[in-house]
């Protein structure tokens, strides 16, 4: 660790933080030192403990051991209220706003005494003069876009005079343009003397936008360095603990002309839950033996995927689907599995919708066992409940179950979100295997890197249209944002 130069104490220092959740050790002597006026990235794989560490810093939970120091003074936060008073502000990954209330009411949360709209509006004016960030105080939060909601969380922190801003995975829900805007705001804040902690699992974001970076792995501190002294390679080695695994990428399959169409949509229109049109009179096809990625902004893909998997009907148009379609939704805990049911019962779930008659448990048990074996699901036996499996194993199991019906098509939603790199690699190779066996695969990912790596081609949903492009980062971004990048 760099020696502290100069007489100013670090804005935020976390020393030797340990935290257990039952038998699981989430943090083990983790540390973080954030200097004033810097943007500091907190890097690590999913599950490394980054969010837990910062939630402790913000007073949302208390550590089992360790100290928190703000400006060199030890603090003992028993609630976020005290952290806010000490100058901390947090922008959460899944926003902590209340959609049913207005902007002003959300900013006012946590205050005391009588509430007056005028007072809050005045405070927002003041923040806007200081930082240039502004939102209409009377606007209903439910009508704000993701980027605006994030702006609101930031404004809220500024309205409480936060000097240390913590952002948890701020770029996942944003388009590139908004990301640039965000980082220039943070840069301005840092030059003004504020400090930023950027929690992220994306190496590129850390290197491009932070001054310093700290890496956590499995709850422990690994290293800290200036970003100008770091490379993608050195950071990924620190994050993963090994050098980058050789990417087992199958050669891209040549365009699948001649392959039969498995899913086809003709002049289809789809609305999202808010009622806005996300797909407008579009047509597309998915063929056997190809992996099609879907890129979209802000939840425009959810309805599309559910129409493709036959779970809902489109608002207009025709869809022709095969009989058996596998579906792996984003929220496996609620939508794919019944946690209190055993693995065997979860297998039976797949064919429970139709049919009368008796259930042959012996046969289903065998099927469950074969899924567990071929998809490498770590579990004592098929009679354990789904809740007892880890996230990665649950996902492997769900994928195996959906493929067990030998579906003609497989639809997946963010298939590796929240999984560690081993589980993610395993899922990817199973998806490729399904493709090679002739299944038509469609998957949505909010992670551009995953789209580029896994897909044979990418469907970009933008302003109601669907465009098919090659899986290249710039190309996808171009169509997604309807902008043309100037080529040198």
């Amino acid at each position, binding site marked *: 660790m760099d020696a502290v130069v100069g007489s100013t104490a670090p804005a935020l220092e976390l020393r030797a933080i340990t935290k257990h959740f039952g038998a699981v050790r989430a943090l083990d002597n983790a540390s973080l030192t954030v200097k004033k006026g810097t943007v500091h990235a907190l890097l690590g794989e999913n599950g490394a403990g980054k969010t837990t560490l910062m939630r402790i810093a913000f007073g949302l939970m208390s550590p089992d051991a360790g100290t928190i120091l703000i400006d060199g003074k030890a603090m003992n936060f028993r609630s976020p209220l005290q952290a806010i008073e000490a100058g901390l502000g947090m922008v959460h990954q899944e926003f902590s706003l209340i959609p049913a209330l207005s902007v002003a009411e959300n900013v006012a949360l946590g205050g005391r005494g009588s509430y007056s709209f005028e007072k809050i509006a005045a405070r927002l004016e003041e923040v806007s003069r200081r930082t240039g960030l502004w939102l209409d105080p009377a606007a209903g939060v439910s009508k704000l876009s993701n980027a605006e909601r994030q702006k609101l969380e930031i404004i809220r922190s500024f309205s409480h005079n936060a000097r240390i801003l913590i952002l948890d995975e701020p770029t996942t829900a944003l388009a590139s343009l908004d990301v640039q805007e965000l980082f220039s705001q943070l840069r301005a804040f840092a030059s003004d003397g504020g400090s930023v902690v950027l929690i992220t699992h994306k190496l590129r974001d850390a290197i491009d936008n932070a001054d310093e970076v700290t890496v956590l792995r499995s709850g422990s501190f690994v290293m800290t360095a200036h970003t100008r002294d770091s490379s993608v390679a050195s950071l990924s080695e620190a994050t993963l603990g090994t050098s980058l695994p050789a990417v087992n990428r199958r050669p891209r399959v040549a365009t699948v002309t001649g392959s039969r169409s498995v899913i086809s949509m003709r002049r289809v229109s789809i609305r999202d839950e808010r009622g806005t049109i996300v797909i407008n009179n579009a047509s597309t096809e998915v063929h056997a033996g190809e992996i099609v990625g879907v890129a979209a902004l802000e939840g425009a893909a959810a309805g599309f995927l559910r129409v493709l998997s036959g779970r809902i009907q489109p608002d207009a148009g025709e869809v022709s689907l095969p009989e058996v379609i596998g579906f792996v939704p984003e929220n496996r805990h609620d939508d794919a*599995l019944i946690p209190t049911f055993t693995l065997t*019962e979860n297998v039976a779930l797949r064919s429970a919708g139709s049919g009368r008659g008796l259930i042959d448990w012996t046969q289903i048990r065998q099927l469950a066992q074969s899924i567990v074996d071929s998809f490498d699901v770590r579990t004592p036996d098929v009679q354990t409940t789904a809740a007892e499996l880890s996230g990665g194993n649950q996902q492997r199991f769900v994928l195996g179950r959906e493929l067990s019906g030998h579906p003609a098509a497989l639809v997946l939603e963010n298939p590796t979100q929240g999984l560690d790199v081993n589980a993610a690699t395993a899922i990817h190779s199973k998806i490729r295997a399904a493709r090679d066996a002739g299944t038509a695969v469609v998957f949505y990912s909010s992670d551009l890197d995953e789209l580029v790596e896994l897909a044979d081609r990418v469907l970009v949903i933008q302003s109601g249209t669907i465009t098919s492009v090659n899986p290249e980062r710039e190309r996808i971004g171009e169509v997604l944002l309807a902008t043309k990048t100037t080529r040198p």
Partner: protein
Amino acid sequence: MIEYILLGDALVRATPLILTGLAVALAFRAGVFNIGAEGQLLVGAAASAAVGTRLGAIPSVISIPLLLLAGAVAGGIWAGIAAELRRRFAVLEIISTIMLNFIAIHAVSFLVRGPLQEPTGIYPQTESLSDILQLPIIARGTRLHLGFVIAVVLACVLAWTYRYTTMGFRVRAVGAGRRAAASAGNINVERTSYRVFLLSGALAGLAGSVEVGGVTFALYENISPGYGYTAIAVALIAGLRPLAVIGSGIFFGILETGATALQREFGIPSSTASLIEALLILVVLGVGKTRGAALLPTWRRGFA
């Protein structure tokens, strides 16, 4: 000899508790909060008494099943009102079924003083059922009637259905994970819940007709000392499992028969039994929660 009779009495008391317990357990298992077993029982009793007092001389083999069927159908229809309100208007069933309970009580009061009143017009009750319409006694010297056997058999049938049929599995899935049932299982959750609701009402209605056919032989006010509410305790203590409901129902039967005896002997109010029952529900809840395991289906539909 006394114990034999007392046991018989306890099992007689247990019969409607098992049937309504099954009704409640079935509904709760699918995530339908049917608190209306009391009203469904009353309606079933009323239908049964109405049909029974108008039936001519028909052999028992036909007439008794007919009476039981009348009760079940009436209970199913009564539950159906709440089921329709839930399906069409998203009315929370816990409120609608309780409202229907009160409506049923007043309806019975009206019937026994009006259209169904016994011929002399003096007493607020129906005519008594003729002997051939009464459920046969199965243990000589006691009041234990066929209804107990029916209850036990139905419990076994329900248990088997849960375990071995696709329909039973659907019911369990809907209660344990509504979204997964719909998304991963392609189960029509609304249709499954609706059917379960009706069946639950039918079971409670059957309890009513069994009471009329086996114990009271007529319809009058206060024919039920709150069986439909005790059934909630019976179902929860049994963990919503049909076979356990048998034991749970018998336990409560003993509890309530004993309470009546205690009141006779020592003047302790028999309402102590309902007190204990409510406490038991809380204990089950508390134990279930502190042990961390979900004892009950955790899915609940949101409001309106």
